[in-house]
């Protein structure tokens, strides 16, 4: 299967939008306009873009606290995403959720969850509803390498397999759980291998290559719609920034050296492993930045010139500037919105109807 021109252009545009949106959010955070935890996506764009573009409008997305880009790719207007980071009434969660809790019911963006390991049960629950209704819909469940150690991973994958639920378990393996490198938090560092414990078909994909990500995701979603039950993909990726804006990320690998001066065999063994991984600059030099990689790819195919790429870059900058302006001008929510939400919010009938097709 080869990915057609238009799609590649859409990918390039979304990846650039993602990169620019996040870096701009970082600026606003530095200025104090965005407060709280802010987990950014630079370095991982190929995963979100390639994966979510493989989903149908009727599919559901369940994401984590590092989900701004997932929402953008799903089609949520940038201004509503940015406004939520600002905590404004026009934000996609009405200013009630914030950066880690983005929801868009109409687009079936079922939320960002901030307690690691929560996306699994939510995803199998939605999938259970889909199965009962015998609909050709799939649920994409996102999670990181660190989240694969939470008990809900085990419990939920078992149930998903037991009942053949339509879930695509998508692991964004960026090799770190905050400051803890994967060799130090998981006995088996190839996350996809754990799926075998539940009879779930799994594969590992280069998450720095948007085309590979997209193709693997399409295949998995096809199998799900064909009734093959849950599928599992591990995307190998890397985040350039710290875990969140509160984290300089200096443990990669500066701190490590210092800390590992404690002499004992196991830490020595780990040190040796740590060194196999490049730091931010090395990644850049190695030229494996996923956005740059796609741009090159398109140039080689003659799909895009340097100028085209520049134009896209310009246009997304404009979009992001407008988003920030929109957020800043937006009003704050009022407490009665909160109280109303507690009393049931908007009605849940639209979805309920589908229960009896």
């Amino acid at each position: 299967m080869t990915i057609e021109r238009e799609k590649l252009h859409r990918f390039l545009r979304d990846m650039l939008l993602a990169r620019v949106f996040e870096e701009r959010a970082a600026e606003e955070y530095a200025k104090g306009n965005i407060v709280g935890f802010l987990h950014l996506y630079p370095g991982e764009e190929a995963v979100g873009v390639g994966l979510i573009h493989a989903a149908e409008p009727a599919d559901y997305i369940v994401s984590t606290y590092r989900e701004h880009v997932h929402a953008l790719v799903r089609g949520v207007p940038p201004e509503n995403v940015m406004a939520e980071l600002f905590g404004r009434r026009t934000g996609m969660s009405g200013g009630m959720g914030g950066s880690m809790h983005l929801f868009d019911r109409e687009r079936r963006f079922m939320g960002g969850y901030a307690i690691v390991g929560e996306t699994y049960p939510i995803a199998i629950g939605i999938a259970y509803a889909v199965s009962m209704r015998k609909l050709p819909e799939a649920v994409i469940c996102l999670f990181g390498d660190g989240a694969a150690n939470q008990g809900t991973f085990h419990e939920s994958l078992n149930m998903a397999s037991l009942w053949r639920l339509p879930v695509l378990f998508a692991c964004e393996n960026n090799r770190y759980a905050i400051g803890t490198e994967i060799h130090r938090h998981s006995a088996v560092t190839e996350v996809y291998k754990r799926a075998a414990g539940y009879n779930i078909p799994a594969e590992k994909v280069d998450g720095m290559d948007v085309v590979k990500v997209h193709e693997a995701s399409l295949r998995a979603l096809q199998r799900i719609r064909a009734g093959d039950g849950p599928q599992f993909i591990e995307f190998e990726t890397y985040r350039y920034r710290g875990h969140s804006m509160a984290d300089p990320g200096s443990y990669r690998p500066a701190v490590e050296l210092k800390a590992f001066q404690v002499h004992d065999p196991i830490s020595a063994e780990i040190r040796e492993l740590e060194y196999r991984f490049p730091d931010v600059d090395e990644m850049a030099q190695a030229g494996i930045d996923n956005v740059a990689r796609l741009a090159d790819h398109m140039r080689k195919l003659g799909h895009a010139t340097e100028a085209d790429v520049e134009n896209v870059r310009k246009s997304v900058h404009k979009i992001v500037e407008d988003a920030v302006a929109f957020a800043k001008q937006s009003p704050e929510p009022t407490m009665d919105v909160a109280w109303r939400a507690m009393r049931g919010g908007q009605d849940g009938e639209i979805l309920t109807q589908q229960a009896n097709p």
Partner: protein
Amino acid sequence: MAEELLYWQALNRALDVEMSEDESVFTLGEDVGLYGGTYRVTEGLYAKYGEWRVRDTPISENSFTGLGVGAAMAGMRPVVEIMTINFALLALDAIVNMAAKIPLMSGGQFQMPLVIRVPGGVAKQLGAQHSQRLEHTMMNVPGIHIAVPSTPQDAYWQLRQAIASSDPIILLEHEMLYFSKGPVDVTADAPDLHRAIVRREGSDLTIVSYSRMAVLAMQAAEQLAKEGIAAEVIDLRSLSPIDWDTCAQSLEKTHRLLVVEEDCRFAGAGAEIAATLVERCFFVMEAAPVRVAALDLPTPFNGTLEAASIPRLQDIVEAARSLHQPAAPQA
């Protein structure tokens, strides 16, 4: 046209009716299907509705409760059975961080029509780990509603109302009440899900209680009547929200408050009940409120000690007596 039903039968009937009327209602939990439910509440439903609507789950409380949350977000009306409240500790993230918070975190985009049924309370020598009372923990979670039926009729009404509601509701069923019998009129109009009921009128003091202890409080009131003490007994029926007006009205009349709970005394459900009622009724109260509650101790296995660790009929009667004729205030 009321029929005599056991508490579990009333719950079974309510669940059956709701499932037959709305295809989006389904139940899941450990051994609810093939086995028919530990306390028989789901008996016969597996054969009638099939395994997708009566789902036996693995022993994975946090995830199957979270499954209920996800299904509710997708428009279903899940009734999750956690085999006993003791295991609900494993599912608190799904209850507290998901079910209770998603409606607000989503800015009101999602409702949470989720019912969680949990048998609980102190039964007979099940040991410390199986004698949990978590009403207080659940009460402290804004967004979670809690119903505590003490009769088969309330069990029937409140389960049906809980399923019909769009809020996340925990139905706390007491393990010692499943085989208690009582009249159930399926045609009668139900009082509001969260309305308290004055089970017995009296003018000398007000006993506020719920679940199994409300039954014990009624027996105590009868005994007290023989001694000429007229106790008014209020069965809260709901622990969140609490029907304060019904309690306050009673205190205007009796001026004395006795709270009876099976929860451990320290920071138990009774603390909130006493605190709020004192705040509301301070100037009509003629004596300090009294709480009769469980000892602040994990439940000992030995039967005699277990019985002594929670309120007994006599404990209630004696507390009521001394509240009625208080010793001289030591100010």
